[in-house]
Protein backbone atom coordinates (compact mmCIF):
# COMPACT_ATOMS: atom_id res chain seq x y z
CA UNK A 1 0.00 0.00 0.00
CA UNK A 2 2.80 2.43 0.90
CA UNK A 3 4.50 1.61 -2.41
CA UNK A 4 1.34 2.47 -4.35
CA UNK A 5 0.83 5.70 -2.40
CA UNK A 6 4.37 6.92 -2.95
CA UNK A 7 4.18 5.96 -6.62
CA UNK A 8 1.01 8.05 -6.87
CA UNK A 9 2.78 10.91 -5.10
CA UNK A 10 5.70 10.72 -7.55
CA UNK A 11 3.26 10.61 -10.48
CA UNK A 12 1.37 13.60 -9.08
CA UNK A 13 4.52 15.71 -8.63
CA UNK A 14 5.73 14.63 -12.08
CA UNK A 15 2.42 15.78 -13.59
CA UNK A 16 2.63 19.17 -11.86
CA UNK A 17 6.20 19.61 -13.07
CA UNK A 18 5.20 18.79 -16.63
CA UNK A 19 2.41 21.38 -16.49
CA UNK A 20 4.58 24.06 -14.89
CA UNK A 21 7.40 23.50 -17.35
CA UNK A 22 5.09 23.95 -20.34
CA UNK A 23 5.89 20.47 -21.67
CA UNK A 24 2.18 19.69 -22.11
CA UNK A 25 2.20 22.39 -24.83
CA UNK A 26 3.12 20.43 -27.96
CA UNK A 27 4.25 23.64 -29.72
CA UNK A 28 7.02 24.12 -27.17
CA UNK A 29 8.36 20.58 -27.72
CA UNK A 30 8.16 20.87 -31.51
CA UNK A 31 9.86 24.27 -31.24
CA UNK A 32 12.79 22.64 -29.44
CA UNK A 33 13.20 20.11 -32.26
CA UNK A 34 12.92 22.84 -34.92
CA UNK A 35 16.57 23.89 -34.88
CA UNK A 36 16.34 25.61 -38.29
CA UNK A 37 13.18 27.54 -37.37
CA UNK A 38 12.24 29.67 -34.36
CA UNK A 39 14.17 27.44 -31.96
CA UNK A 40 12.61 27.16 -28.50
CA UNK A 41 15.19 26.18 -25.84
CA UNK A 42 12.65 25.60 -23.03
CA UNK A 43 12.96 21.79 -23.16
CA UNK A 44 16.71 22.04 -22.56
CA UNK A 45 16.03 24.03 -19.36
CA UNK A 46 13.47 21.41 -18.28
CA UNK A 47 15.94 18.57 -18.79
CA UNK A 48 18.74 20.52 -17.11
CA UNK A 49 16.53 21.38 -14.12
CA UNK A 50 15.33 17.79 -13.76
CA UNK A 51 18.90 16.46 -13.79
CA UNK A 52 19.80 18.36 -10.60
CA UNK A 53 17.58 16.55 -8.05
CA UNK A 54 18.02 13.29 -9.98
CA UNK A 55 21.83 13.46 -9.93
CA UNK A 56 21.70 14.12 -6.17
CA UNK A 57 19.31 11.19 -5.72
CA UNK A 58 21.70 8.83 -7.56
CA UNK A 59 24.54 9.99 -5.28
CA UNK A 60 22.39 9.30 -2.22
CA UNK A 61 21.33 5.91 -3.62
CA UNK A 62 24.98 4.96 -4.18
CA UNK A 63 25.66 5.29 -0.44
CA UNK A 64 22.66 3.19 0.59
CA UNK A 65 21.89 -0.46 0.09
CA UNK A 66 18.13 -0.35 -0.15
CA UNK A 67 15.33 2.06 -0.99
CA UNK A 68 13.25 3.51 1.85
CA UNK A 69 10.46 0.99 1.24
CA UNK A 70 12.91 -1.87 0.75
CA UNK A 71 14.39 -3.50 -2.31
CA UNK A 72 17.63 -2.73 -4.09
CA UNK A 73 18.20 0.20 -6.43
CA UNK A 74 18.16 -0.44 -10.19
CA UNK A 75 21.60 -1.56 -11.34
CA UNK A 76 23.37 0.32 -14.13
CA UNK A 77 22.43 -1.55 -17.32
CA UNK A 78 25.40 -2.96 -19.25
CA UNK A 79 26.38 -0.75 -22.21
CA UNK A 80 24.61 -2.72 -24.91
CA UNK A 81 23.73 -0.55 -27.93
CA UNK A 82 21.47 -2.77 -30.03
CA UNK A 83 18.92 -2.03 -32.73
CA UNK A 84 16.13 -2.00 -30.14
CA UNK A 85 17.76 0.85 -28.23
CA UNK A 86 18.88 2.98 -31.17
CA UNK A 87 16.14 2.14 -33.68
CA UNK A 88 13.39 2.24 -31.08
CA UNK A 89 14.57 5.62 -29.83
CA UNK A 90 14.76 6.94 -33.41
CA UNK A 91 11.16 5.80 -34.03
CA UNK A 92 10.14 7.52 -30.80
CA UNK A 93 11.91 10.71 -31.93
CA UNK A 94 10.04 10.68 -35.24
CA UNK A 95 6.66 10.35 -33.49
CA UNK A 96 7.73 13.00 -30.97
CA UNK A 97 8.45 15.46 -33.79
CA UNK A 98 5.21 14.64 -35.63
CA UNK A 99 2.98 15.29 -32.62
CA UNK A 100 4.98 17.12 -29.93
CA UNK A 101 3.96 14.42 -27.45
CA UNK A 102 6.12 12.06 -25.44
CA UNK A 103 4.56 9.56 -23.00
CA UNK A 104 4.65 11.64 -19.77
CA UNK A 105 3.08 14.86 -21.09
CA UNK A 106 0.56 12.87 -23.16
CA UNK A 107 -0.72 11.08 -20.03
CA UNK A 108 -0.53 14.25 -17.90
CA UNK A 109 -2.75 16.12 -20.38
CA UNK A 110 -5.35 13.34 -20.70
CA UNK A 111 -8.01 15.44 -18.94
CA UNK A 112 -7.59 18.60 -21.02
CA UNK A 113 -6.08 17.30 -24.27
CA UNK A 114 -9.41 16.80 -26.05
CA UNK A 115 -10.00 14.06 -28.60
CA UNK A 116 -6.56 14.68 -30.06
CA UNK A 117 -4.91 13.57 -26.82
CA UNK A 118 -7.17 10.54 -26.54
CA UNK A 119 -6.37 9.41 -30.09
CA UNK A 120 -2.65 9.84 -29.43
CA UNK A 121 -2.77 7.90 -26.13
CA UNK A 122 -4.79 5.07 -27.69
CA UNK A 123 -2.30 4.80 -30.57
CA UNK A 124 0.62 4.96 -28.11
CA UNK A 125 -0.89 2.12 -26.06
CA UNK A 126 -1.35 0.12 -29.25
CA UNK A 127 2.25 0.78 -30.29
CA UNK A 128 3.45 -0.44 -26.87
CA UNK A 129 1.52 -3.69 -27.39
CA UNK A 130 3.04 -4.14 -30.87
CA UNK A 131 6.52 -3.88 -29.33
CA UNK A 132 5.83 -6.44 -26.59
CA UNK A 133 6.81 -9.55 -28.65
CA UNK A 134 10.04 -7.86 -29.80
CA UNK A 135 11.35 -6.98 -26.36
CA UNK A 136 14.40 -9.01 -25.25
Amino acid at each position, binding site marked *: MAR*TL*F*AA*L*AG*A*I*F*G*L*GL*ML*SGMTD*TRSVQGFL*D*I*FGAWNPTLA*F*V*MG*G*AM*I*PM*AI*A*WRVAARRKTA*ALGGSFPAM*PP*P*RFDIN*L*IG*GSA*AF*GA*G*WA*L*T*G*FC*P*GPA*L*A*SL*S*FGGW*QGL*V*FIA*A*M*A*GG*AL*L*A*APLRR
Partner: protein
Amino acid sequence: MDINWLYGLLGGLVIGTAGAIYLLVNGRIMGPSGSLGGLMDGSDRSGEQWGFVAGLIAVPAVAALIIPMQTYATSNWAVLVIGGLLVGFGTRLANGCTSGHGVCGISRLSPRGIVASASYVGAGMVVMTVLRHVWGVM
Protein backbone atom coordinates in the same frame (compact mmCIF):
# COMPACT_ATOMS: atom_id res chain seq x y z
CA MET B 1 10.95 39.37 -21.96
CA ASP B 2 10.16 35.71 -22.52
CA ILE B 3 10.28 33.80 -19.24
CA ASN B 4 9.31 30.38 -20.57
CA TRP B 5 12.82 29.16 -19.82
CA LEU B 6 12.32 30.04 -16.14
CA TYR B 7 9.09 28.01 -15.96
CA GLY B 8 10.98 25.27 -17.78
CA LEU B 9 13.77 25.30 -15.21
CA LEU B 10 11.35 25.38 -12.24
CA GLY B 11 9.16 22.68 -13.76
CA GLY B 12 12.27 20.63 -14.46
CA LEU B 13 13.30 20.84 -10.80
CA VAL B 14 9.82 19.60 -9.84
CA ILE B 15 10.06 16.74 -12.38
CA GLY B 16 13.48 15.78 -11.03
CA THR B 17 12.12 15.85 -7.47
CA ALA B 18 9.41 13.38 -8.50
CA GLY B 19 12.06 11.10 -10.01
CA ALA B 20 14.22 11.40 -6.89
CA ILE B 21 11.31 10.39 -4.64
CA TYR B 22 10.45 7.42 -6.86
CA LEU B 23 14.07 6.27 -6.81
CA LEU B 24 14.88 6.78 -3.13
CA VAL B 25 11.51 5.67 -1.70
CA ASN B 26 10.30 3.01 -4.16
CA GLY B 27 13.68 2.09 -5.65
CA ARG B 28 12.33 2.52 -9.16
CA ILE B 29 13.20 4.52 -12.26
CA MET B 30 10.49 6.99 -13.19
CA GLY B 31 9.31 6.06 -16.68
CA PRO B 32 5.79 6.67 -17.95
CA SER B 33 6.43 4.63 -21.13
CA GLY B 34 7.43 1.67 -18.96
CA SER B 35 4.42 2.12 -16.68
CA LEU B 36 1.98 2.32 -19.59
CA GLY B 37 3.68 -0.56 -21.41
CA GLY B 38 3.78 -2.78 -18.32
CA LEU B 39 0.09 -2.17 -17.67
CA MET B 40 -0.79 -2.78 -21.33
CA ASP B 41 1.12 -5.99 -22.01
CA GLY B 42 0.73 -7.34 -18.48
CA SER B 43 4.48 -7.57 -17.79
CA ASP B 44 4.08 -5.32 -14.71
CA ARG B 45 0.62 -4.57 -13.34
CA SER B 46 1.80 -3.78 -9.82
CA GLY B 47 0.09 -1.23 -7.61
CA GLU B 48 3.07 1.06 -8.17
CA GLN B 49 2.42 1.23 -11.90
CA TRP B 50 -1.29 1.93 -11.40
CA GLY B 51 -0.54 4.47 -8.67
CA PHE B 52 2.05 6.32 -10.71
CA VAL B 53 -0.19 6.63 -13.79
CA ALA B 54 -3.21 7.58 -11.65
CA GLY B 55 -1.27 10.38 -9.94
CA LEU B 56 0.15 11.57 -13.24
CA ILE B 57 -3.33 11.87 -14.78
CA ALA B 58 -5.36 12.97 -11.75
CA VAL B 59 -3.32 15.88 -10.44
CA PRO B 60 -3.07 17.80 -13.74
CA ALA B 61 -6.82 17.16 -14.17
CA VAL B 62 -7.51 18.98 -10.90
CA ALA B 63 -4.95 21.71 -11.61
CA ALA B 64 -6.50 22.31 -15.04
CA LEU B 65 -9.78 23.22 -13.32
CA ILE B 66 -8.00 26.21 -11.75
CA ILE B 67 -5.60 27.07 -14.57
CA PRO B 68 -7.09 26.30 -18.00
CA MET B 69 -4.59 24.27 -20.04
CA GLN B 70 -4.31 23.25 -23.69
CA THR B 71 -1.95 20.99 -25.61
CA TYR B 72 -2.31 22.79 -28.99
CA ALA B 73 -1.87 19.36 -30.63
CA THR B 74 -2.61 18.82 -34.31
CA SER B 75 -6.17 17.88 -35.31
CA ASN B 76 -4.91 15.67 -38.13
CA TRP B 77 -5.99 12.28 -36.83
CA ALA B 78 -3.66 10.35 -39.16
CA VAL B 79 -0.66 12.25 -37.79
CA LEU B 80 -1.85 11.56 -34.23
CA VAL B 81 -2.27 7.83 -34.92
CA ILE B 82 1.08 7.43 -36.71
CA GLY B 83 2.86 9.57 -34.12
CA GLY B 84 1.26 7.68 -31.23
CA LEU B 85 2.16 4.30 -32.71
CA LEU B 86 5.77 5.42 -33.24
CA VAL B 87 6.07 6.82 -29.71
CA GLY B 88 4.49 3.77 -28.04
CA PHE B 89 6.35 1.23 -30.15
CA GLY B 90 9.71 3.04 -30.07
CA THR B 91 9.83 3.80 -26.35
CA ARG B 92 8.82 0.25 -25.48
CA LEU B 93 11.39 -1.28 -27.83
CA ALA B 94 14.10 1.02 -26.46
CA ASN B 95 12.87 0.41 -22.91
CA GLY B 96 12.52 4.09 -22.05
CA CYS B 97 11.62 7.62 -23.09
CA THR B 98 12.53 11.20 -22.23
CA SER B 99 11.99 10.40 -18.55
CA GLY B 100 13.64 7.00 -18.04
CA HIS B 101 16.49 7.34 -20.53
CA GLY B 102 16.69 11.14 -20.42
CA VAL B 103 16.07 12.48 -16.91
CA CYS B 104 16.91 9.31 -14.96
CA GLY B 105 19.54 7.83 -17.31
CA ILE B 106 21.67 10.85 -18.22
CA SER B 107 21.72 12.04 -14.58
CA ARG B 108 23.56 8.81 -13.63
CA LEU B 109 25.69 8.95 -16.80
CA SER B 110 24.15 5.72 -18.07
CA PRO B 111 25.71 4.95 -21.48
CA ARG B 112 22.40 3.48 -22.72
CA GLY B 113 20.47 6.53 -21.52
CA ILE B 114 22.88 8.89 -23.27
CA VAL B 115 22.83 6.92 -26.56
CA ALA B 116 19.02 6.59 -26.51
CA SER B 117 18.59 10.32 -25.81
CA ALA B 118 20.98 11.25 -28.63
CA SER B 119 18.96 8.97 -30.93
CA TYR B 120 15.49 10.33 -30.13
CA VAL B 121 16.56 13.98 -30.03
CA GLY B 122 18.58 13.55 -33.24
CA ALA B 123 15.79 11.72 -35.06
CA GLY B 124 13.27 14.27 -33.79
CA MET B 125 15.35 17.18 -35.12
CA VAL B 126 15.87 15.49 -38.50
CA VAL B 127 12.17 14.67 -38.91
CA MET B 128 11.13 18.17 -37.82
CA THR B 129 13.60 19.76 -40.24
CA VAL B 130 12.42 17.62 -43.15
CA LEU B 131 8.74 18.25 -42.37
CA ARG B 132 8.96 21.99 -41.84
CA HIS B 133 11.86 23.15 -43.98
CA VAL B 134 12.24 20.58 -46.76
CA TRP B 135 8.64 19.54 -47.41
CA GLY B 136 7.14 22.71 -45.94
CA VAL B 137 4.34 20.94 -44.08
CA MET B 138 3.22 21.34 -40.41
